[in-house]
């Protein structure tokens, strides 16, 4: 993995003000804020300001969808104006997005598909997966003006600085998304870099190639060498054919993004040959088949087992964990704790609640422990 240093990120704006004038201004500002806070208590001043200007500096990070551009029948690019506190990103990084689907806030991670843009907007390109709640909502049912929650950009799948002389990019399906951001960034410069780039891209069929025009355009202009494979005619990308496709493979650090099968094969192939490989993995959204009962891990590492019909609250208490509790029948919300990972089942109606780190709410998904039994291993943020 590439060692990401903060030097890649644009310097954060401002810094501590210096000098007498600024100090005074800051003091007035602080005083005005404390007056405003005492005038709106018990509300949080920022929560109140969010009703008027959710994208201002100091607000919890969110973004407004400016444009939804269809890429293929099943994918679209969302151009988003992020809040003023967006700290910037490096092409290849991803952003965690909180989307309200059917009224429920769900979090997913998408690669940023542009380098830093002149207009300050960011973009993600989403492929609607079969049965994918969030991806289908974003591709098919999201209109400009929709507000999204955002986290700061993250991820170490970025090109090194300075650029090596030669590069190999291997992508499959929506794995093109972080790579298109890298390419756009490189080729939007006044003088395109001299790096010799090969892009091997595999998609289900010719019609399914996201950014088809664009990557073929780069190839036509001689900026990259493009190897485009379509599974319906060429079959899946076989890593053993890499030598044939890229004769100078050993001279090229490889950056790959795509389904787990492809990345696993590449890792085996490259490590056997001692070649340099950087990968970006898309995490699965659902946990492995939820079971009946399981082990609950608490923040301090304590583990408690419970069967599929015992509430986590009861199991934890009988194991000596001090738990918040109330009515013990699911009505008072006195026992709510954040589920960080895993699945639980509501004992009243069997409904499953799933938490996947990096995919669901960063703070965990709140659950009522008095009516929830573990459905497989799970961890709860409480000690």
């Amino acid at each position, binding site marked *: 993995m590439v060692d990401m240093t903060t030097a890649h990120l644009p310097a954060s704006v401002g810094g501590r003000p210096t000098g007498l004038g600024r100090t005074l201004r800051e003091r007035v500002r602080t005083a005005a804020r404390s*007056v405003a806070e*005492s*005038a*709106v*208590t*018990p*509300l949080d001043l920022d*929560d*109140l300001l*969010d*009703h008027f200007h959710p994208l201002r500096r100091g607000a919890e990070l969110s973004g407004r969808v400016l444009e939804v551009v269809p890429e293929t029948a099943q994918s679209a690019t969302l151009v988003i104006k992020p809040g003023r506190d967006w700290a910037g990103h490096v092409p290849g990084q991803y952003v965690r997005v909180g989307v*309200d689907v*059917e*009224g*429920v*806030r*769900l979090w997913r991670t998408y690669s940023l598909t542009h380098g830093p843009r002149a207009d300050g907007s960011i973009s993600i390109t989403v492929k609607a997966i079969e049965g994918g709640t969030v991806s289908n909502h974003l591709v098919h049912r999201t209109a400009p003006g929709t507000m999204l929650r955002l986290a700061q950009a993250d991820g170490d799948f970025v090109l090194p600085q300075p650029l090596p002389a030669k590069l190999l990019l291997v992508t499959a399906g929506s794995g093109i998304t972080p790579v298109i951001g890298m390419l756009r960034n490189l080729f939007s410069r006044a003088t395109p870099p001299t790096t010799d780039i090969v892009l091997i891209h595999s998609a289900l069929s010719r019609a399914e190639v996201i950014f088809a025009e664009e990557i073929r355009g780069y190839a036509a202009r001689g900026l990259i060498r493009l190897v485009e494979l379509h599974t319906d005619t060429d079959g899946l990308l076989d890593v053993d054919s890499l030598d044939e496709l890229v004769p100078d493979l050993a001279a090229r650090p490889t950056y790959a993004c795509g389904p787990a099968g492809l990345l696993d094969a590449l890792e085996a192939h490259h490590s056997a040959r001692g070649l340099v490989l950087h990968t970006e993995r898309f995490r699965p959204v659902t946990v492995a088949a939820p079971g009946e009962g399981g082990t609950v891990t608490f923040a301090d590492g304590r583990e408690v087992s419970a069967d599929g019909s015992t509430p986590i609250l009861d199991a934890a208490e009988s194991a000596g964990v001090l738990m918040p509790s*109330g*009515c013990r*029948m*699911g*009505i*008072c*919300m*006195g026992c*709510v704790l954040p589920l960080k990972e895993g699945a639980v089942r509501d004992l*009243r*109606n069997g*409904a499953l609640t799933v938490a996947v780190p990096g995919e669901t*709410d960063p*703070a965990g*998904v*709140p659950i*009522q422990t008095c009516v929830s039994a573990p459905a497989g291993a799970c961890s709860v943020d409480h000690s």
Partner: protein
Amino acid sequence: MTTITRKPENPTAHLTEADIEQIGIELDAIRQDVIDSRGERDAAYIRRLVDVQRRLELGSRAVLLGSAIPPLWVLGTVGLSVAKILENMEIGHNVMHGQWDWMRDPKIHSTTWEWDNASTSDGWKHSHNEVHHTYTNIVGKDNDLGYGIMRVDEDQRWVPFYLLQPLWNFVNACVFEYGIAAYDLELGKNLRIPKEKRSAEFQENLAKTLRKIRKQATKDYVVHPLLALPFGGAVGALAGNLVANVVRNVWSHSVIMCGHFPEGVETFERAAIPEDETRGEWYLRQMLGSANISGGKVTHLMTGNLSHQIEHHLFPDLPSNRYAEVAPKVQALFEKYDLNYHEAPLPQQLYSAWHKVVRLSLPNDWLATTTPKNLPSQLKTLWAMSTKGPKVRRAAQARLTQLARRQQVAASEQAGSAAA
């Protein structure tokens, strides 16, 4: 009221154990229907409501800056009163019940919400969500029954102190938010404990509540009047805030009284609740222990949908905007099992609840046996019961009870002869 198990005719006597469990199953199904269909429309409702409330409150406070002009004072004060009522009733109370937790929006969530009220959200969630909703109308366990300062049941022995309870009730209504804060803290019980023996938990909660009361009072009675000072509206802003708080207090007190206090709402004896009360039995207790207010959309909104008190007590965690559509199904269930669905317009429920407060402030049967003709002698009895010792009280009470029985017999005989 007399607890259900001491009544001559228990209104649940006709139900078998299987009936009660079936009621539970049918109510669970109604609940599940709402859970399966809640979504974007509901989320939009609460977000819009919060947005409207925030703007109304800010707007009203802005208008109060110019409260030196009388019409602006009226406008600002009405607006602020409505804003505070919306915030406490339809938003705060319901968010703290977790009705909107399913949206997974940390900003509209039972674990993070704080409301515009003297009581802290944590204190409220304990005494209201946990104690009141679990032990609804169980005499001695549910402090909402008389808030520990009133006589709410014939079986509570009458003492002269209770003569003042209509007054207490009115004072409590005016300062209701502080009353709630005090009873969230179980202040009366705790103050009776010597200072050094009070629990650390109580001390901590007390400090939190006092801090919140200070911040609330500073906002309403210091900061906003000071902001209005340059416009000559300091006194107007102060008065506007005071009036809005009292209006909110009296209104919420009235709504809550209508929920559990009108005549005909059942109460329960602590000893008669089984240790392992089933879900069906719990549901049944909620069905009989609550009363609805009939009315239009504005009534429902301004009462925080506690006009659907029965539905709220059955399903405290369902979004309040859905109670209206659930109500006909619940009512049908009441009819199917021959139970009394207690519903009446606000003035009627309020009168009924106040009538009960007055009736129970007097010795049992005193009000019922008093006619214009015997008023002087009745007053004499009351005076004696209030000023003399327990012995006199017992004797007078026995006479009252006898008188009531005689009047009843006479009335039924009269009805009998009239029918003949």
